């Protein structure tokens, strides 16, 4: 009897595995940048091209860098989540306007609302390459020492903000 039960036992284990697997996102690839210092950049700002912004300006603060573009459909979906996050004041949100036209980016923020303290303008996507951007939107959490602690590929959702992003920001703020 027990001999004949082996297949069903294996099958149950398989079901458990597949059930857990359903909750995982196979597209979520861990970034090799996590735990590493944020790559250096110094870029003109979107609103005021004469001024620049660098990740070094943020040393000593926990902040969120969000990569966005006016041509990006998922960014539209993500936008209300970012507006809420910015309005809550839990963490400053900075934008990286990626491979966009300046006037398109500005029009987009004007029409949809602007969650960003500052948006920087990465016209040729050089900084995007340093940050390993491969799908917009992407979101990074960077700690007080300028180290990347979290990366999200794809749109943020209210659940991710609540269960992952905010607890991490709180923890980093206390450190």
């Amino acid at each position, binding site marked *: 009897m027990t001999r004949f039960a082996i297949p*069903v036992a294996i099958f149950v284990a*398989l079901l458990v595995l597949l059930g857990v697997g359903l909750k995982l996102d*196979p597209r979520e*690839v*861990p970034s090799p940048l996590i735990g590493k210092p944020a790559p250096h950049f110094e870029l003109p700002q979107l609103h005021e091209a004469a001024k620049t912004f660098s990740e070094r300006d943020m040393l000593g603060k926990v902040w969120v860098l969000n990569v966005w573009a006016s041509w990006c459909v998922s960014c539209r979906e993500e936008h209300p989540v970012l507006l809420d996050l910015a309005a809550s004041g839990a963490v400053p949100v900075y934008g990286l306007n990626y491979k966009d036209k300046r006037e398109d980016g500005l029009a987009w923020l004007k029409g949809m609302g602007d969650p960003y303290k500052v948006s920087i303008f990465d016209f040729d996507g050089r900084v995007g390459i340093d940050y390993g951007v491969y799908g917009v939107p992407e979101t990074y959490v960077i700690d007080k020492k300028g180290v990347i602690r979290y990366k999200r590929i794809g749109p943020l959702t209210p659940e991710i903000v609540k269960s992952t992003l905010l607890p991490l920001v709180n923890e980093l703020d206390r450190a």
Partner: protein
Amino acid sequence: MIPELGQLAAALALCLALAQALLGLVGAARGQAVWMAATRPAARGQFAFVAIAFACLTVSFIYNDFTVAYVASNSNSALPLHYRIAGVWGGHEGSMLLWILMLSVWTFGVTLFSRQLPLEMVARVLGVMGLVSTGFLLFILFTSNPFSRLFPAPPDGRDLNPLLQDPGMVMHPPMLYMGYVGFSIAFSFAVAALLSGRLDAAWARWSRPWTTAAWCFLTVGIALGSGWAYYELGWGGWWFWDPVENASFMPWLTGTALIHSLAVTEKRGAFRSWTVLLAILAFALSLLGTFLVRSGVLTSVHAFATDPTRGIFILALLAIVIGGSLLLYVWRAPAIGLGGGFEPLSRESLLLMNNVIFAAAAGSVLLGTLYPLALDASGLGKISVGPPYFETVFVPLMAPALFLMGVGPLARWKKASLPDLASRLRWAAAAAALAALALPFAMGRWGAMVALGLLLAAWVAASCFVQIWEKVRNASGASGAWARLSVVPRATWGMLLAHFGVAVFVVGVTLVKGYESEKDVRMEPGDTVEIGGYTFRFDGVRDVTGPNYVAGRAQIPVTRNGKVVATLYPEKRIYRVQNQPMTEAAIDTGFTRDLYVSLGEAVSDTAWVVRVHHKPFIDWIWGGCLLMALGGALAASDRRYRLAARRQPEQYAAAAAR
């Protein structure tokens, strides 16, 4: 109106499937002859309504009805008609409907060709198939309805994925699904036999032709998928151990074990509980394949239709269908008993080794496919398992399998003699050794792996000829070689042809792996590149316009020793609707080699990156698969399966005495 009719037909099919399941299973359990007799008409009605539903969806595609959400996301008014028809199974919802259509076609087949079976058996088989069909109809009606409307209707559709706009892709899913779903018959027969407690040679004989037929379709389906990947993806590879390829390969490996194990059960009454288990596993792996493709648990080139709620539904279906049958197996298998005994060297023992090897192969593919998922699920990180693992595992498993394939068919049932086998196979061994030593030199370079591959291929092929020769020499009662061969049953010819196909396949794999060459070059118009003795000249790229794409088409004449062999026209297409670039490789196919050119990126106004391949004997890979499938078809059509099964007891006795 048409989509609503389709939806209604699907709902009616669901009712009939449910009736078919209940009447069959409960009727057989209670011995109600009228109930049991009603399963056939219920199954035929189900087939008719599923066919109507499928036809409605097809009509919606043909007439570009973009108010149907599924049509809008998988078709476009500029899409040529044949791809609009293939678009029916180009996405998730339609491919599930195709799955159900295939299941109802097989069910319909069972209602037609089961007159010689006891009514109780037919009722149970149709009952189990009705249950599976019910599950899948519920699945499409509740989670993946292909007939859902979309208001307001978009002006035009989002187009069929350009990767699927290819003749190979038109045929690949129907063939593959015919194979996958065909194993449901072996599964239903196994469950019916477990329920009735009648697991005998007759049961094996009834399931054999169905299982072999399903296996043929699966073989052709996998070969078509591999051929598609070869010329459509533009990398020149023919098998990538991609999770979804593996998902189709696992049922094939288990199915291969099953058709061999059924032979033993039919002829000798042995391996019964093992055969039942294999029949359950072959269909379980088909369902698992469906789950892996449709749930998005694994990423792969195929993961274009994913949704977690659907995943949960299929997982539940998997749990009920497979979990239920495995529990039934735990309950009933201990009572099955053993069949006839056999010696350590006999046809039974050789077939047992075949089964062990194929089961181990299926297990290692399963392990390699799910290992990344297991690591991820236990939080140990993300990895991917690729060709190095599978190749390392497969060569040592398949080499002994090929060796045994040369011996098995010559061995006697019950007890074989080693000196006898050795003497009958000595010429085959000599031919194999000669091929391994000499042929690689003829190809230009001797290598150990190439020699091993050719040794085994020649061994298998030569063993087939030894078997034919023995039949010519030994057949009794007929005079003349032709008359003697004509009494050989089709099943035997089928087996020989399929085994010969394996040899052809192995030759293809070995020679491509051993002698293929490729070059990536930057070419200006007028530049030439030489590979495998062929000279390719790049004559530049000009723009062409297709029905729904624009393309740059290169002209590349190929010469050998100054003579033009072929002119190839590889393309780089941009499909307008999805704005997706596609590489359309150009291939000159030959009996002993393919010349394969694909176009990379433009590096300047006139210069392009061009990739040229020389692939010796690659078409033998698919030729071998085709021979295997033909062999299977021949075996499945053997007349003894069509003889009245009522004579079965004395035939079984006669077979056992042989």
